[in-house]
């Protein structure tokens, strides 16, 4: 088992507790708990699967169950991308395993990167999105709950399957897809019409950073990816839950708490996103310094979108405020001192 993946499953469990704390109607809390526990069990099974093929089959089972949940989009619309992801990953693994022409390894590398993108639901494959759909049946479940641990498993298995040359091609593909998601996600989160869609694009932008981290095949890249995934699961996801009611009522507030949340979402110091960005830039500088320049420029795009999303939170009160405070405290703790998190993942 990958220690990072185990850690991400634990983060998902904490995120579920935080989501239950900030979720608004009591009825939705009960169904959220049930769906969250099933999703968590499935994600844990993916992490515990002893072989890549078994992990893919568990992911397929999760995809069918998730798509069967009562929701506003059709079953077919929800199952398309995970099925595409599993299909691409299976074919890519086949290409990596068999002997034959040299080009097969390259196809395997590109297929693994494309399959990962499809499975999580980031560009160039993104799910259809309905802003009024419950979070548990929306694409956000793949982006922020099941996806992070699954991605760690896929990346680790992919690196085991591929030879050195193809591994470099896999890393380059991930960096390419990551840059695309960074730019597209952050610009779309800033300029898209509805605030719920802006939140969805902000997850995609964060995934861009995580994919770049996975692609930079140095220790700092892996560390950056883990901290970014932490900030998705235990930062952006609970804050998205907390903002749901205010987004529905189109409430926009500009209190200090909104600025704090915006700072956390933008990855500014002292939050977890900041240490992730520093690690990513350090890794990129070691690998190929012009990449660090591109990444630094791309990171500036988070600012306008984060201000928009921070304002959409409203003014949290009661248990809602408690949940938001817990999220911010966790992110400050990891931002100031990420070492225990990285040491637990043996990074």
């Amino acid at each position, binding site marked *: 088992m990958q220690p990072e993946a185990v850690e991400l499953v634990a983060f998902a469990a904490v995120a579920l507790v935080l989501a239950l704390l900030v979720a608004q109607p009591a009825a939705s809390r009960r169904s959220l708990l049930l769906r969250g526990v099933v999703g968590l069990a499935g994600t844990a099974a993916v992490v515990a699967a*002893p*072989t*890549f*093929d*078994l992990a*893919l*089959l*568990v992911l*397929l*089972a999760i995809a*069918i*169950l998730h798509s*069967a949940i*009562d*929701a*506003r*989009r*059709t*079953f*077919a*619309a929800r*199952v*398309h991308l995970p*099925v*595409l992801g*599993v*299909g691409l990953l*299976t*074919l890519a*693994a*086949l290409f990596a*395993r*068999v*002997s*034959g*022409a040299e*080009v*097969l390894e390259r196809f395997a590398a590109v297929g693994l990167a494309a399959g990962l993108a499809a499975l999580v639901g980031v560009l160039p494959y993104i799910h259809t999105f309905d802003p*009024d759909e419950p979070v548990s049946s929306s694409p956000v479940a793949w982006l922020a709950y099941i996806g992070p641990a699954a991605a760690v498993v896929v990346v680790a298995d992919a690196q085991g399957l591929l030879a050195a040359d193809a591994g470099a091609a896999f890393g380059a593909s991930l960096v390419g897809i990551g840059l695309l998601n960074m730019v597209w996600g952050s610009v779309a989160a800033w300029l898209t019409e509805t605030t719920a869609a802006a939140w969805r694009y902000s997850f995609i932008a964060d995934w861009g950073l995580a994919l770049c981290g996975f692609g930079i095949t140095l220790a700092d890249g892996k560390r950056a990816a883990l901290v970014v995934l932490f900030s998705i699961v235990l930062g952006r996801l609970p804050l998205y839950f907390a903002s749901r009611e205010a987004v529905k009522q189109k409430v926009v507030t500009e209190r200090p708490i909104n600025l704090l949340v915006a700072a956390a979402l933008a990855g500014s110091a002292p939050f977890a996103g900041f240490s992730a960005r520093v690690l990513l830039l350090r890794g990129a500088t070691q690998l190929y310094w012009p990449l660090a320049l591109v990444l630094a420029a791309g990171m500036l795009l988070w600012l306008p979108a984060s201000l928009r999303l921070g304002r959409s939170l409203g003014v949290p009160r009661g248990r809602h405020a408690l949940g938001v405070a817990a999220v911010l405290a966790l992110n400050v703790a990891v931002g100031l001192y990420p070492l225990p998190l990285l040491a637990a993942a043996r990074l």
Partner: protein
Amino acid sequence: MVEGAGAFLAWLGAALVVLSDGRRGLALGTFVAAAGIALVSFSTAGPAASAALGLGGLIAGVRRLTTGRPGWAIMPAGSTPRLVLCVAGGLVALWVGLTVMSGDDAGLRFTVIAVIGLTGARALGSEDTPTVLTAVAVLALAVAAAAGLGADHPGLAPYGLAAAIAAISSWVPIRTPRAA
């Protein structure tokens, strides 16, 4: 010989799933594809795993006979692009599996590429829930069959899980989406 026959049956079954819109056609495709995948997996996975794959496909096919659009509806009007996909997909899988790749288990390689390609395309191209579920059930069997191409012996687990996915997915209650 057995491997070749199994590979042909698997392609034929996947092609039937692609070409059918009715429950009988989809069920027949599931039966034929599952039988082919089970046959072709026999040498790498052993009798128990092959039987599991066959049983999973059998249950999925029987269930499909009871739900979905009535009748066969094999190659309904306007299905020429799907027919072209089946033939071209089969030829590409044959070329990649036999010429580009080398080594043992050529039939299994062809089966995995052809079945995942065809059923994946069917699942992505259809909005009809029974059709998508049928394609996903057959795809699960092919994903398990691919485990036989790994360096280590995968054991019974992937085959059993794939059979369970194929069998149970056809029973999953799918509700109509709620209106706004």
